[in-house]
């Protein structure tokens, strides 16, 4: 019974694997999701969920309680009978890992690859609709305002966020948006705004609108880039 002293030395937190060696299946607070009875069903969703997840955490899972059922069965299959000589060493290795993180790692959700590189039919960036939205937004916010240096800073930032939010509602999903707003004082100066982009012309586009009144002018541009 050379393994007995080592079992007692094991820290209590990782007792699941250790206690399984004794043949007793003690429900452990750690082993909530892998109790002795629901071994089979709990294994199913885990494997089906994300094979990557399982492989990356396999060393950790083995410390918690093993892929449920597999290790226990190897140890539990010989309760009191002949123990494989590898058994205690497995326990040793499990115990040695158990000093590592003591908290349950947050399972990362791995989304499957959709293999979609283009927007669906009819789900393109509708430049005309976005332009109408921009014009409406600009006229609504700037209709009665006059230019003032202090308030225009805040005004232009809020306007950019507002227009981006409005554009997001009319734009199909999987599109990233860049909304750019220029607001200036209306004097006898001239101004030119140009933009060029390197993108996929079939799926990406832009829309722009301008507004001016006696004291200020504004130019808003929204670029929509498909997220592949």
């Amino acid at each position: 019974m050379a393994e007995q002293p080592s079992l007692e030395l094991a820290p209590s937190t990782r007792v699941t694997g250790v206690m399984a060696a004794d043949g007793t299946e003690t429900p452990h607070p750690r082993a909530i999701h892998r109790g002795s009875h629901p071994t089979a069903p709990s294994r199913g969703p885990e494997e089906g969920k994300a094979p990557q997840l399982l492989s990356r955490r396999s060393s950790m899972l083995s410390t918690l309680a093993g892929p449920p059922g597999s290790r226990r069965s190897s140890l539990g299959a010989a309760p009191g009978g002949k123990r494989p000589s590898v058994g205690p060493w497995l326990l040793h290795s499990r115990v040695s890992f158990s000093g590592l993180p003591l908290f349950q790692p947050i399972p990362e959700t791995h989304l499957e690859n959709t293999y979609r590189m283009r927007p669906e039919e009819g789900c393109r960036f509708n430049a005309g609709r976005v332009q109408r939205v921009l014009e409406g937004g600009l006229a609504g916010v700037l209709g009665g305002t006059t230019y003032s240096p202090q308030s225009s800073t805040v005004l232009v930032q809020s306007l950019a966020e507002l227009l981006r939010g409005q554009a997001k509602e009319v734009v199909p999903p999987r599109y990233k948006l860049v909304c750019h707003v220029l607001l200036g004082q209306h004097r006898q100066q001239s101004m030119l705004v140009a933009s060029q982009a390197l993108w996929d012309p079939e799926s990406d586009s832009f829309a722009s609108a301008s507004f001016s009144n006696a004291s200020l002018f504004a130019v808003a541009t929204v670029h929509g880039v498909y997220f592949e």
Partner: protein
Amino acid sequence: FSDYTRHFEPLHFEFSSIYYYFFPPLLSDYNHNKVNQWTAAIVEQSLTHLVKLGKTYKYIVTCAVMQRSGAGLHTASSCFWDTTTDGTCTVRWENRTMNCIVNVFAVAIIL
């Protein structure tokens, strides 16, 4: 907004150094007839240089040239994207008669 520039430090540095090649030709005064050519040249050359950086990004380059007449100008942009991979860089330049603001928005392509 400033966080994105910090995050995009490598792109920012490479990009702003590019502009020392562009702006010397613009040392002349504001000329309404030529400003079209200037903005087109700036934007085209920016894109060419950005492509030469060889990163997997889609780029949007905006250039605004304004005559300096004492009027105020404010510009803001709001973007809906993945903040961990996408970013922006802005270069401002001016001379006696005009201001020039160039924005570069880089949107990542996930391969």
